[in-house]
Structures are given as structure tokens and as C-alpha cells.
């Protein structure tokens, strides 16, 4: 037995997009045998390097090709709407073109519905039911309808989507954790389940105080606040880039000591309620303070004074970061363009294996392995 917590767990990804690919990537890292059937959907080359690492790939033009895998898998991941007759087939992106994935899913759904010992996870923009279930969506559309976009960006400008593919990634991360929960339940209680993850709901469930605040107080929508919720909670230009501070009330005195201005001892700044009325004046002081500090200065002052400081780091900065190197965070995966470095384990303490390039294998061989393996 290896020290990989998911050693021996069989995962089938059917024609994955970003979300299913991300969930599968994490499961593979923790030791699951993740087999990607069919071609990934709408993934760039870089996304394929990241999301297919550590998996095996099989060709699948029809469900007949992967039926044995569907019958033996412990977990099936898709990011398509699963048909439940008489619902229509999943909509193909290329209308008017026969979509093999649709046939695969129809048949997979029929087979999987007969099994009690499998976790089936679908990750879709709006979930498996409801009036928008068949709506066309991208990362931007799903994130916009989840509420977070309305809160992001400058109040004088249009709402702004967060960088990367956050709607997709949130769907994948939720699917990863939900899958593990359901798999544990299957180990303990003996039965699997079908999990319906909606990207919209993933976002709508995490609207911080703004969502419940609007619902509870009836005060209407929260505005966008750009980079400054208030003076002690925001991002500022510093001498060599951008840096941020996020103080709770208990941390404000330490931050004020660093600002080192006697005026901050006055009631209008010391009292949190009055401080809010003088936020512009305080912001000007904070701007000036950050402008005179480098990112290195700020990172040193944070832990020394227990003030929550940060700096805006790029992926390149993180790849060169000593602390992450010391913790062994990044994996390396070989590509045709060289060695790519990608995030490794999302947490330490449970067995994780380094990334390897995806391996193309014969579907019959995998079917034989899976059918012979002891669950």
C-alpha cells in the first residue's frame, strides 16, 4: 500500500472542461487513477498542461468505447448537463454538428443510474435543473450571475471579472471537496450519490457580508469599492509595485504606530465610528506611507508588528518565492516546450505525487486493470 490517500480509486473524466479537469487534477495528485475519456473541451494549451498532468487519456468516440470504464469507476466527473430522459440532450457548442460527447453522456447516465456504488459529479454553469439549466455560459457569464463580479472593480467603471478562470476553478474546487465528502460517505454508509454543482451557486454562496446584508437589511445592492473598502483595508501603490493592508480593529493601533503621525491619536481617528467619517484624510496618510516603502520593507514589517500586510505577487514572483520553495509547493511537469512548473498539493500532510505528463493508453488495457482490481 502506498501513502497516497486515494491509491486505487478509479476516476473517469468524460470530455472534461476546466472545472472537471481541475477537480480531477487534485484527485490525481492525491493518488487516484484518473482516466480522461475523449478530448478536453475548450482548454488552451497551458490549461491542458496544468489540468491533464498526472492523468491517463483514452480515445473515446462513443459510449461503447468507455462503457467498461463507466461500469468500474468509483467516481465519474463531467461538466456537462446529464440527461435524464425525457430531458433533451446536452447542447453542443457547435450547433448542427453531431456531438459525440452528447451520446457518451446519454449512455453513461443510463448505466450509472443503475449503479449504487459510484459518485457521479456534474459541474455546470447553472446546475442540472431550473429555467437557466440549458443557458450557454462561459467563465465570465457564470461568474457575473454569481454576484461577485458586481462587487469587483471601480465604482465609476463597469464591474470587473477576477483574473484567471475563477468561476470554473471554484466549480472544480467545490467538486473536488464534495467528491471526497461523498466518497467518504460511500465508504462508510455503502452507497454513492449524484452531485450537482452549479458554478452560479458556488459564487452566490460566498458573497461575504454583502449578500446576506442586502437580504437582511433590505438596503439594496452593495456598491463596488475598488481597492479600498476603507483606508485600513485596501491595495496601495508602493515604491516598487503594489501592496495591501487589511486591519481588523484590534490591529489598527499597531498600524497607526507604523504610520507614526501624532494626529492619529485624536479621537476622530482612534474611534472606529468617527474614523469612518475621516477616511479620506486617513487614506491620504496611508498612500503616502506606502509610497515610501518597498515590497520587501512591507513584508518585513508585517510579521514584526503583526499587521496584516501583503504585496501583489505575480506568478513569476511566486515561482521565485523562497518560502514556497522551502515548502516544496510547486511540481514540475515535462512538456514539448520544456519543463513547466505548476501548483502542487493544495495542502500538506497527506500523500501527494509529483506531476507527470498525461499518458495516452489503450482503453481496453484500462478496462482490464479496473475490472481486475479489488475495489
Amino acid at each position, binding site marked *: 500500500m502506498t501513502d497516497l490517500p486515494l491509491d486505487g480509486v478509479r476516476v473517469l473524466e468524460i470530455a472534461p472542461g476546466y472545472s472537471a479537469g481541475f477537480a480531477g487534477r487534485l484527485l490525481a495528485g492525491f493518488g487516484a487513477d484518473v482516466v480522461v475519456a475523449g478530448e478536453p473541451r475548450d482548454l488552451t494549451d497551458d490549461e491542458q498542461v496544468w489540468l491533464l498532468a498526472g492523468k491517463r487519456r483514452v480515445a473515446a468516440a462513443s459510449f461503447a468505447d468507455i462503457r467498461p470504464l463507466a461500469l468500474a469507476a468509483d467516481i465519474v466527473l463531467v461538466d456537462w448537463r446529464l440527461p435524464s430522459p425525457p430531458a433533451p440532450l446536452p447542447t453542443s457548442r457547435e450547433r448542427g454538428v453531431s456531438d459525440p460527447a452528447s451520446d457518451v453522456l446519454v449512455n453513461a447516465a443510463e448505466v450509472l443510474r443503475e449503479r449504487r456504488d459510484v459518485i457521479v459529479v456534474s459541474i455546470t454553469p447553472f446546475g442540472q435543473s431550473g429555467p437557466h439549466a440549458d443557458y*450557454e455560459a462561459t467563465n465570465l457569464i457564470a461568474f457575473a450571475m454569481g454576484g*461577485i463580479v458586481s462587487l469587483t472593480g471601480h465604482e465609476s467603471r463597469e464591474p470587473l471579472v477576477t483574473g484567471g478562470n475563477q468561476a470554473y476553478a471554484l466549480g472544480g474546487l467545490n467538486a473536488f471537496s464534495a467528491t471526497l465528502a461523498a466518497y467518504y460517505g460511500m465508504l462508510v454508509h455503502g452507497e454513492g450519490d449524484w452531485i450537482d454543482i452549479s458554478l452560479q451557486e458556488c459564487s452566490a454562496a460566498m458573497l461575504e457580508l454583502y449578500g446576506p446584508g442586502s437580504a437582511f437589511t433590505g438596503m439594496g445592492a452593495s456598491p463596488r469599492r475598488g481597492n479600498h473598502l476603507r483606508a485600513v483595508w485596501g491595495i496601495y501603490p508602493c515604491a516598487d509595485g503594489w501592496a495591501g493592508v487589511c486591519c481588523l480593529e484590534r490591529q489598527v493601533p499597531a498600524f497607526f504606530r507604523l504610520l507614526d503621525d501624532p494626529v492619529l491619536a485624536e479621537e476622530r481617528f482612534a474611534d472606529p465610528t468617527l474614523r469612518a467619517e475621516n477616511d479620506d484624510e486617513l487614506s491620504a496618510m496611508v498612500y503616502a506611507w506606502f509610497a515610501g516603502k518597498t515590497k520587501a520593507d512591507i513584508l518585513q514589517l508585517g510579521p514584526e508588528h503583526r499587521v496584516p500586510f501583503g504585496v501583489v505577487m505575480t506568478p513569476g514572483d511566486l515561482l521565485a518565492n523562497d518560502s514556497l520553495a522551502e515548502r516544496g509547493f510547486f511540481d514540475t511537469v515535462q512538456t514539448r516546450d520544456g519543463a513547466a512548473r505548476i501548483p502542487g498539493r493544495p495542502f500538506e500532510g497527506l500523500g501527494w505525487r509529483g506531476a507527470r505528463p498525461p499518458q495516452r493508453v489503450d482503453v481496453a488495457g484500462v478496462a482490464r486493470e479496473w475490472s481486475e482490481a479489488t475495489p
Partner: protein
Amino acid sequence: MKKLPFEGVRVLDLTMMWAGPFATKLLAEMGAEVIKVESPQAWDNIRTLIPQPGVEASWDASFYFNDYNRDKKSLVLDLAQERGREVFLQLVAKTDVVIENYRADVLDNLKLGYEALRAAREDIILVSMAGFGKTGAERHHVGFGPIIEQMGGVASLTGYGDDGEPYKTGISYGDPVGGIAAAGAVALALINRKRTGKGSFVDLAQRETMATMIGEAFVASSLRGEDPVHRGNRSARWAPQGIYRCAGEEQWLAISVRDDTEWAALAEVVGAAELAGLAVDERRARHDEIDTRISEWSREQDPQAAMERLQAAGVPAGRVLDSDTIHGDPHLLERGFWVELPHPRMAPWKQPGVVWRLAEANPHLRRHAPLFGEHTAELLRDLLGMGAQELAALEAAGVTSNAPVNPGIG
């Protein structure tokens, strides 16, 4: 009815603020018995973060606190006192999981590190979720969600592009991301214990979890040295894509066009049929012009009607729902996403329901967040067999309490 996955799992929850409580909220939704442990002197700041002048026992009447702490039990125990720690370790012996999101050194300073917990229960699972982990040169950094987002690379990818400024997400994004991953860590550790009989110490650095959300950016950086490019709401692949103003105050519509067919449909709807034949490269080159044409149309449109019309034409479009309009979204309403739970101190309001929709086990919200110390006596009596005299002694010593000491603004 099928059992929830974590039925029978007990969690001692030392987490506070958002990241940790979001994790344990998910565990509770999946059926775990989550016991939220707070001290009379150091309670969860979320209870008092939003001032509520004049509200009696305001720490029990916070919608913000309630959102993250539903379906949990409240146990008040002063872990700074020796007696409090003794009681805590007695509870650990009857617990599967301990989870905390303190600063990296706090749990050890309390003499409640992993080895102390293991001494109480050999196969205990400890999940620690400090911002920067328990090891490494930056382990002593302090940070909340926005700091995690900055230090994890995501903020560097977000921006309009014409002002050179990176932007934070409008929520403390690092917190729920860390929480979702931590819930997964608990599940994985339980699977591992089932498989091996052994407990685990999981060290989750929220900054690393955040970096995992942008894996492809590390591929671009490591293979080609690419720095982040701020594209606003545009796509590197597709065009046009953007967020367009609609009729009414702060009403917006997001549109993504992925192929020529979708573009032709959009061009027709917005009255730009003469541009319908543009290929993607041409659309990208003329994006500003196309945005102007779309905006001229959209500014006269109701966002809901415009979304429905574009979707009917096969164009990916979505209303930018805000913190208010999202509660009236017909789709979320039909899926029963918003739930109103009775609460002894507050009138009901729409709260987000369960995101991990297990079709057959059917998890659903059961109860409002606990009042401060609501279950202290019940838990100490039922789990440790304490009698009335012992409970009174703990309260007299300030180890337990039914109210925070000197609650101010969080």
C-alpha cells in the same frame, strides 16, 4: 433517506472569521456534528464586526456571523486557562477532527499542538489553515482573504488594463477558497483514516490554495516568462466579450462570443448585421468599435430581458446580478437556493443554501447559527458526564460563559 456523508463525524471547530467557519459550515451541511469553540475573552470576531448600536446581545444577532455558522453547536471554553485546556482535551478524546485557522504559532502556544491532541486521541485529525502555513520563511505573516489573494497571485491577474492597477476581488476571496479546500482536506483525511487507521496533521496554507486557482498562469510564466496581462473583461481567446451597461441604475449585462455562429446571432440582435461576417481576428482587432455598437443597443435594454433574448438566440449572456438582485433571480428561486431559517433574535432573511447538492442524501439547512454558549452545558454534560456542580464551577472560574467579555467592535 440516505445518510449524509459525515453523519457520525464529530468536529471541534476552533476557527474564526471566514475561511475556517466556511470550511466547517460545509462539514455541517454534509452531516458532521460541528462544535464551535469560542473563549469568553476571544470570541469569533465576525459576531461583532458590524456595529449594531442598541441591539441587545448583538453578538447573537449578526446576519454576517449567522451566514457562516449555521448548523453548528456553540461551546464556550477559555483555552488560555489550564482547566479550559483540560476540558478541551477530554473532548478531543471523543472527537474525529480538530480544525483551526489561528496564526501559525497560536495552537502550539496554547499547548494544544498536534502531539498534545494525539496524546488525547491517537487517530485524531488536525487541520490547520494558517494563511502561509506552519513552515517556511513566511509562516509568521498575518493575513486575511484580500492579503491571501494578493500574495497568491490572483490580484496580479485582475485589472482593467488601462490604469496599470491590479484589483482585489470585491469579496475577501482568499477566505472561502481556503475554506472549501479545508473541507476537502478533512474529507481526505477521513478517507485516509478509514484506509489506514491513522490520523493526520494537515497543514493548509491558504496562500497556496489560492495559487492553485490559477495553475495555467504558472505554466505561462515558467515556460515563456509571461507576466500577467490585464484584459478587463475581455478574453484572450474569444471576441467580443465584455460587460455592457443596460437601462437603469447600475444594470449590466455580460456577453461572451465563442464562435462565428454566436457572433452572427449577436450582431443581428444588436443591429450590427453588417458586421456579422467578421472572423475572430477581425473582431478582436475591432473590439472597441464592436463594444460601442453593443453598448448602444444594451443601454436601452432591460438586463433580464436582454439576457433572455440573447440566450434564445444562442448567445452566451448573463445579467450581472448584484447583492440585491441575486435574491430575485428566477433560476436560483426555482432551484430553492435561498432559504429562510427561523432565528430567535432576527427576522428571517434569504440565506444561501447548500452548494454541494447530493441528489439522494439531499443535504439541507437545519438550524440557525448557535447563540454564544448555547450548547456548552449540554455538550459537557452529554459528552463528558459533568454535573451541575462542575458546570457551575467552570462558569464561576470564567472558563465558560454565556456572553463575551467586553464585546466591542470586532
